[in-house]
C-alpha cells in the first residue's frame, strides 16, 4: 500500500511532464537538429538488436506451432499463426522491450549525469527550457523510431517464420506468403503499430523522467539507470495488456 502511495504521485509527475512535452511539440520552433540526431542515435542504431530479436522469435514460433499443430494435421497453417502473433503482439512488444532497455537506460544515464552536474539547472538558468531542449526531442524520436523498428521486426519475424516453416513443414515460400496475405488485415497492422507508437512515447518519457530527476551524484546516476530499465519494462508490459484489451474491444 505504501508503495502504491509513492507510485501515484510519480505517475502524476510523468503526466505533467507529458503535457509539457506535448506543449513543446506544438510551440515552434521545433528543434530539428537534436530530433534527427536522436532518431539516428536511439532509433536507427537499434536496428541490429531488432533484427536479431525478430528473426529468432519468428523462427522459434514457427518451430513451436509446426510441432504443436502436427497431431491435428494443421501444421500447414503455421504461417497464419506466426504472422498474427508477430504483427499483433511479439513484433511491437519485444522490439519495445529490447530497444526500450537499450534506449531508455541511455536517456536516464545521460540526462541523469547532466542533472547531477547541474547542467539541467544551467539550461534553466540560461533562460532555456530543459523539456524543450532535452526531453521533447528524445520522446519524439522514440515515437517515430519505435514504430519504424516494429515494422522492420514484423517483416524480419515473418521471414524467420518462413525459413523454418518451409523447412519443417515443407510448404513453399509462396504458400507461406499467400497465407500471410490471407490472414493479416490492415487492422492487425494498425493494432500493432498503434501500440508501438504508445510504447515509443512510454520509453522516451520514462527514461527522460527518471533521468532529469536524478539526484545523489554518480551513485544516483547508476540507480537511475537501473530504475529506468525496470520502470520501462513494467510500463510496457502493463500498457500492452490494457491497449490490447482496448483494441480488441474496438476491432473485435
Amino acid at each position: 500500500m505504501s508503495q502504491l502511495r509513492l507510485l501515484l504521485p510519480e505517475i502524476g509527475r510523468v503526466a505533467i511532464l507529458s503535457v509539457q512535452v506535448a506543449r513543446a511539440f506544438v510551440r515552434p520552433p521545433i528543434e530539428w537538429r537534436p530530433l534527427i540526431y536522436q532518431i539516428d542515435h536511439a532509433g536507427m542504431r537499434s536496428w541490429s538488436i531488432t533484427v536479431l530479436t525478430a528473426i529468432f522469435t519468428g523462427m522459434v514460433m514457427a518451430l513451436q506451432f509446426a510441432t504443436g499443430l502436427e497431431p491435428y494435421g494443421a501444421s500447414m497453417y503455421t504461417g497464419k499463426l506466426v504472422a498474427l502473433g508477430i504483427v499483433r503482439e511479439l513484433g511491437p512488444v519485444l522490439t519495445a522491450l529490447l530497444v526500450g532497455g537499450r534506449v531508455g537506460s541511455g536517456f536516464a544515464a545521460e540526462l541523469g549525469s547532466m542533472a547531477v552536474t547541474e547542467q539541467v539547472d544551467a539550461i534553466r538558468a540560461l533562460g532555456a527550457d530543459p523539456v524543450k531542449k532535452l526531453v521533447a526531442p528524445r520522446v519524439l524520436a522514440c515515437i517515430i523510431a519505435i514504430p519504424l523498428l516494429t515494422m522492420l521486426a514484423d517483416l524480419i519475424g515473418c521471414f524467420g517464420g518462413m525459413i523454418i516453416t518451409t523447412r519443417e513443414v515443407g510448404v513453399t515460400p509462396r504458400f507461406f506468403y499467400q497465407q500471410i496475405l490471407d490472414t493479416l488485415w490492415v487492422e492487425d497492422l494498425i493494432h500493432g503499430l498503434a501500440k508501438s507508437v504508445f510504447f515509443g512515447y512510454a520509453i522516451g518519457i520514462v527514461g527522460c523522467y527518471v533521468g532529469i530527476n536524478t539526484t545523489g551524484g554518480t551513485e544516483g546516476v547508476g540507480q537511475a539507470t537501473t530504475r529506468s530499465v525496470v520502470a520501462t519494462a513494467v510500463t510496457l508490459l502493463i500498457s500492452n495488456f490494457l491497449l490490447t484489451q482496448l483494441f480488441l474491444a474496438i476491432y473485435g
Partner: protein
Amino acid sequence: MDPIISFRGVKKAFGPKVVYEDATLDIYPGETLTIIGGSGTGKSVLLKMLIGLLRADAGSIVAFGQDVTKLREEQFLPVRKRVAMLFQSGALFDSLTVAQNIKYPLREHKWGTEAQMDQRVEEVLEMVGMPNAQSLKPAQLSGGMRKRLGLARAIAMAPEVILYDEPTTGLDPINIRRINGMILSLQERLNITSIVVTHDMDTVFTVSNRVAMLYERRIAFAGTTEEIRQSPHSYIQEFIAGGKGALEPDKPEL
C-alpha cells in the same frame, strides 16, 4: 538607495530538513555581497531560489521590484536574463565546445547574427583570460579554466547581477586569485552586482563590500567586512578564524 534584491522571511525545507526558517537579506545595486556559513547549510539554495531553480516555501523574494516567488517557470525568463549564475561545478555542457557553450544563451535569446555571436564569444573569453580556447571541449579544461568558462558563459548576455556558487572551491591559489580578480573587475568595469556564496575567507575579504552569515537557518549577520571582523559573536569569529570550534563537542552544527 533601494535594494535591487531582497529576501523577506524566506522559508525553505527539503522534506524534514529545514534549510531556512526566516531568512531576510537585502542586496544593493553595484555591491558585492558574500554569503558565508558552514558546508551543507544551504547557502546556494538562496541563490537558486532567486532565479527559480528552487522554490521558497514561504516568504517573498523581490528582484527588480517584482516578487519572484509568485512567478511561473516560463515567467522567470526576464529575471534569468538579468541575473546570471556561475555554478559550483561550472555546469558546462560536456557535449559542446567552449564556443558553443558560450553561444548557448546567445542563440536561445537570438542575440545577434552568427558573426556577432562569434565576436561576443571572443570578447568574453578575452575577459576571463582564455583567448583561443573556442574549439576545446570542457573535458580538456583544467578546474580553473572550467570555472572561468562558466563565468564567460554567465556574462555573455551582459547580466546585471551575477550569482557565484563557491567560485573558488577546489582551485589552486593562483586560480583563486584570478577568479577573485575577475569578480572585482566585473564590478568595477561593468558595475555588476554580485552575490558570492563561499567559505573561503580570502575570497570574502578580497571581493566583498558586505558579508552575510548564515547561521541556524537564518541570516544571522549582515554588514561590512570591517563590521564582521569586529563582531562580538563568537561563532562569527570562529568561522573567520577557520572554524576552530568545529572539533569541540556540544557546538551546534554550523
